[in-house]
């Protein structure tokens, strides 16, 4: 047996420990290293993975959003994420709000890649430890950090370049003026990927970043069709959910007003407030409406 340096032994220890935890390393030279990522200016030389490694071979689409995301955008983001899993693996982070919507939409099908700003043995935010475990079991966790590396201020910036680099397109579902998600979007533009953003009402701080992206030339996405169209994908239409007459009426009013208060809906439809609430919970269960707090409701675009 040849002499081995201390450094090599240490590396062996790390590798065997990773092996035990079902983690693996992917080098830039590996044949399953995503081509898209390899093409960016500074591709990570090694990626640490945990979970279903074959997801790296799939087409990938990135959905991100800031932590504070209005309920309608979360619902719509979730729906888009769920629909896109028919053709893509969804790439996102592990945070609240926008990331959470993407995760919840994609995780049931298992086609979810979560890119972490820290090592695989760490968890940020700590409250999402269970979610992280679930993704490792059903989807895939990816990071360029060593297993025990903690999250740093600058690691998000580096992580965002991987998000953008992995994906063919990026959808920003919410972003404030100085949101970190804009970094991902700008990276994606630099790498020549498609960028999509939800449109927001003027003056709504949670959407200033999204509107800014659209101003700069990002695609306006008001539904999943906008994204599918630009990739030339035709998915079979979902069967229309049958609505009762009252539900149709409320649906029409909501379509006209955007977000509306229960009282307004009651006044416009001529129904009692509690009847409106009952029909709205039916619409909610059919995934067509969403409560946005303060007894206000809005539609979920599909």
């Amino acid at each position, binding site marked *: 047996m040849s002499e081995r340096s201390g450094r090599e032994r240490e590396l062996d220890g790390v590798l065997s420990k990773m092996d035990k935890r079902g983690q693996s390393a992917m080098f830039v030279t590996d044949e399953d290293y995503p081509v898209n990522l390899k093409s960016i200016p500074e591709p990570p030389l090694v990626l640490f993975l945990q979970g279903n490694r074959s997801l790296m071979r799939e087409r990938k689409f990135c959905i991100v959003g800031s932590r504070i995301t209005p309920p309608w955008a979360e619902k719509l983001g979730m729906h888009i994420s769920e629909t896109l899993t028919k053709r893509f693996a969804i790439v996102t982070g592990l945070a609240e709000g926008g990331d959470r919507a993407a995760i919840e939409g994609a995780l049931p099908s298992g086609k979810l890649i979560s890119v972490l700003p820290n090592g695989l043995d760490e968890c940020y935010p700590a409250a999402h430890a269970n979610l992280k475990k679930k993704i490792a079991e059903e989807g895939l966790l990816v990071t360029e950090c060593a297993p025990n590396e903690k999250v740093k201020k600058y690691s998000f910036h580096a992580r965002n370049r991987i998000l953008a680099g992995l994906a063919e397109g990026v959808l920003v579902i919410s972003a404030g003026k100085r949101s970190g998600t804009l970094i991902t979007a700008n990276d994606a533009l630099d790498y020549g990927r498609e960028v999509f953003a939800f449109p927001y009402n003027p003056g709504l701080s949670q959407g200033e970043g999204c509107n800014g992206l659209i101003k700069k030339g990002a695609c306006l996405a008001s539904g999943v069709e906008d994204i599918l169209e630009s990739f030339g994908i035709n998915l079979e239409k979902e069967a229309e959910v049958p609505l009762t007459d009252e539900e149709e009426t409320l649906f029409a009013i909501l379509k006209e007003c955007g977000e509306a*208060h229960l*009282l307004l809906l009651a*006044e416009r439809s001529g129904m009692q407030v509690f009847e409106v*609430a009952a029909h709205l*919970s*039916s619409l909610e*269960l059919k995934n067509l409406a969403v409560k*946005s707090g*303060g007894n206000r409701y809005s539609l979920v675009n599909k």
Partner: protein
Amino acid sequence: MIAKIICFTLQGLEGVPVEVETDVSKGLPGYEMVGLPDAAVKESKERVRTAIKNGGMIFPVQKITINFAPADIKKEGASFDLAVAISLLKASEQLVGADVKDIVFLGELALNGDIRPVNGLLPILISAKGQGFTKFIIPADNAKEARFLGGAEIYPAHSLAEVVRHLSGTERIAPLETAEFVVARGERQSSSDLKFVKGQPMARRALEIAVSGGHNLLMIGPPGTGKTLLARCIPTVMPDLTFEEALEITKIHSVAGTLGEEGIVTERPFRTPHHTATTVSMCGGGNRVVHPGEISLAHGGVLFLDELPEYNRSTLEALRQPLEDGKITVSRAGGTVTYPSSFMLCASMNPCPCGNYGSANLTCTCSPAEIRRYRKKVSGPLLDRIDLQVEVDNISYDELTSVTASEPSSAVKERVDRARAVQRERFQGQSVTVNAEMGEREMTAYCALSEEGDKILRSAFEKMHLSARARSRIIKVARTIADLDGSEQILPKHVFEAVSYRIYDKMS
């Protein structure tokens, strides 16, 4: 000579007869008390001595032994004073010929011989009557509380001398006249009324359903939107107290010493313990004697917890079991006591720490993690027991062209009374009185869901990740809504409406 006088002590709401035996005999002058008296009872020695002296009678300078029987119960409080004094007078042969057998003496003595009122008189009278005692001498200041007890001779006395004159037959005290129980309807209208609540149709509807079916209610909304005002209106739409209910509530308040001027509780209680309340003050307890807590004082009425997440977690968790059972058993060194605690829980909270989440014109400055932390302060099991959760919001009136006038409490109460009548008929001869109290057996009998209704629940179950308890709670609420609607069957629209009151589940 030996004298025996009957007195009563309380264990919870149950009166227990205590015999005060006094022996006055020759020997070195002394004054002994035996039979587990507590400090307040022992101190009666001095009160009795001066009261007898100042009442114009003679305190015997002999060997005096006083025994309280049965000896194994702890005796507490000053309500034995009168009985001790009478038995002393009897034993020292100052009440020759007076018949004190079968008379129950209750009262605390002042140094000048006046009789002071005692706490817990009504429950004592009721238990004593149940055990066959019909003659009572009570403090005159307790007379108002006692006058609702029919079929007993009750003599309200002002002083020890008056009692002595009564017993020796020189000057009889006029027996108390029984009073008729009248529910305070007039007074109710003056304080809170739903007609003063502007807007808030959702909360009003939820309140109506909650009262109709005996459900619990949680109101979520930014500060200053009228949550407290709405809660204060709940007693005004609750069904009138029956005499039996009033007596039961009065008993508890009598023990706690919180009885008002009228001597009987005529209005449903509305208790608002502050969020600094301890578990003991909420559930009852005490050092030797177990006092009723807020939940027992709210028996038959409303317990309003303003700013629910601010309460001590363990205090809130302690509410779970009484919410299910309608009574609470408190064990202390002084004994184990069960108090009724069947109340309607009404709670209010802000939607987030800053209070502006979901507001139309103000921005919420809380992070999602902060909001989650705030909401997590209220535990799932407690929330499961709150059937109706409703948002109270501040809608700007510019958004509406017509603002309808608010309905007064009396109109709502009529509908509540009707729904309660339906339930009374349904649960005739059963221990259940309102929909919220239904168990599995009653639910299978009265809450059959149509196939469509079942489908709705199933999808709600999956979408909202509901617990099994939440499911049965939704069905019970749907039953109440159907009752308000005058419908025999639970229709899909009733289920949908019931689901719309689980907003907390939707939010998190």
